[in-house]
């Protein structure tokens, strides 16, 4: 490439003021000196960068001084930014974690909820949990799933460990926890033997409950008294494990009978894991086929009942979802108001500085230089506001998480 071409291009990297003053001289001297191309180009690049850095340093010093002389303005701007950025960061983190982000389970995109749907899934859907017989039949027919599991709420009263307390718990089929995929931190899952009707009572504890009971590793194998019956502790889930929700403290086996014929009592929450490569639509179609087949055999109970499969992620209960979306809307409003405030503050300040700028321009400061100074000042404010916002978000997030209902 011709020397003049790349030299002119590299000279354009220099700050405008410097370029106007010295670019011609540099070109002329370069023509006389004729250094080899690579060192010359490197020299131009390095000096351009250094020149910009010098200006940045100068401008930052000026900006800091200027802001220190206007503390009201500076604190107003930083506060507005902190509130807007902080509120939105905290709320969006929460919304993402609860509704949008993947679940903390292996291959969580394969996890789905399975419900019964009346009046067809295309309109006016009323969804229900499953009844026991449908769960069994659909489990058999659902070959597109690597496993299905069912659970239902079953709180139990713990006695014999200090003051009696009511524990939030669920009945879970032996298939359920393994299909979610997070193994217990201690002990083991339920085995099919534990899940048979008439099997001895067993229980898995949450990490929080285990710690509350003394975090004794030898607790596994011992019995706790729940609803006046002895339950052998066989395992403890890892800290933070929250299936089906963070409030659950104990898991006990469902002990369903495979020959159950109840088709009207719909109270099973069913979760499945799709086989790899199987789409949700295909799996749903498979179950719908089975539901149609069963409806012909049991028209009294199952006419119009079909299957409805949805991803497990984002399955927060409706009140929680509404609350979260409302929070997000509120945070966005806060951001909007913050932006309007910022615009006002900056505009007012700019107006009050007209005299300062015209004096500086008269003294020889180029327009580009002045604009650059303003930009640096604004960036400094933005950096400070952003940092304050992140700090606020860190404080706000646990508070917000407390206030959204867990179930």
């Amino acid at each position, binding site marked *: 490439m011709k020397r003049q071409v790349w030299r002119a291009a590299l000279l354009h990297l220099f700050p405008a003021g410097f370029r106007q003053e010295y670019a011609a*001289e540099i070109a002329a001297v370069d023509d006389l000196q004729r250094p080899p191309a690579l060192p010359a180009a490197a020299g131009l690049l390095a000096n351009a960068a250094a020149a910009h850095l010098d200006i940045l340093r100068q401008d930052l010093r000026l900006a800091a001084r200027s802001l220190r002389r206007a503390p009201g303005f500076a604190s107003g701007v930083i506060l507005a930014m902190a509130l807007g950025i902080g509120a939105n960061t905290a709320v969006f983190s929460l919304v993402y974690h609860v509704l949008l982000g993947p679940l903390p389970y292996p291959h969580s995109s394969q996890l789905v909820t399975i419900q019964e749907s009346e009046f067809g899934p295309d309109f006016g859907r009323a969804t229900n949990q499953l009844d026991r017989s449908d769960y069994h039949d659909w489990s058999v027919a659902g070959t597109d799933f690597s496993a299905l599991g069912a659970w239902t709420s079953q709180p139990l009263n713990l006695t014999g460990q200090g003051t009696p307390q009511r524990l939030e718990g669920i009945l879970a089929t032996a298939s359920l926890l393994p299909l979610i995929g997070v193994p217990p931190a201690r002990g083991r899952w339920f085995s099919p033997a534990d899940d048979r009707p008439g099997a001895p009572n067993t229980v898995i504890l949450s990490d929080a409950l285990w710690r509350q009971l003394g975090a004794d590793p030898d607790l596994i194998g011992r019995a706790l008294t729940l609803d006046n019956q002895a339950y052998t502790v066989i395992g403890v889930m890892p800290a933070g494990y929250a299936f089906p929700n963070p409030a659950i403290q104990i898991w006990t086996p469902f002990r369903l009978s495979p020959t159950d014929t109840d088709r009207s009592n719909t109270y099973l929450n069913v979760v499945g894991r799709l086989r790899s490569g199987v789409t949700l639509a295909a799996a749903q179609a498979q179950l719908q086929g089975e539901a149609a087949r069963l409806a012909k055999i049991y028209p009294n109970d199952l006419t119009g009942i079909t299957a409805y499969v949805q991803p497990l992620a984002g399955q927060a209960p409706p009140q929680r979802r509404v609350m979260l979306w409302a929070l997000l809307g509120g945070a966005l409003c806060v951001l909007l108001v913050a932006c309007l405030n910022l615009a006002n503050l900056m505009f007012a300040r700019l107006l009050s500085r007209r005299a300062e700028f015209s004096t500086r321009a008269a003294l020889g400061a180029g327009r580009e230089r002045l604009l650059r100074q303003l930009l640096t000042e604004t960036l400094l404010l933005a950096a400070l506001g952003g940092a304050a916002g992140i700090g606020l978000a860190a404080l706000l997030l646990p508070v917000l998480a407390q206030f959204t209902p867990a179930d």
Partner: protein
Amino acid sequence: MPEVTAALYQVLLALGAGERHGYAILQDIARGGGRMGAATLYRTLEKLLELGWAEEVRAPRGETSRDERRRYYRLTAAGTAAARAQSRRLEQLMRQAAARGWTQWGRA
């Protein structure tokens, strides 16, 4: 007192010999065993002008320069003082280096 970098000092030395234009400064530096590129030179000259250690002079009398717009530079009193101060600082360092046997400077 702003830091006197090597580049700054080299230009101060060159200007100490009298008024110079840009290319002449580079030639002086080259003759003294150093090496400087055009961009570095003019950035350094800009800094010297900002510090008030050098000033610009239009082509001095008697010079028939090919380019009438050529700029010449010369040290100001402040620049000379700064150059002297830095030289004394370097002198002290050179004395120590001589004591270590790293340089013959200062030996007759």
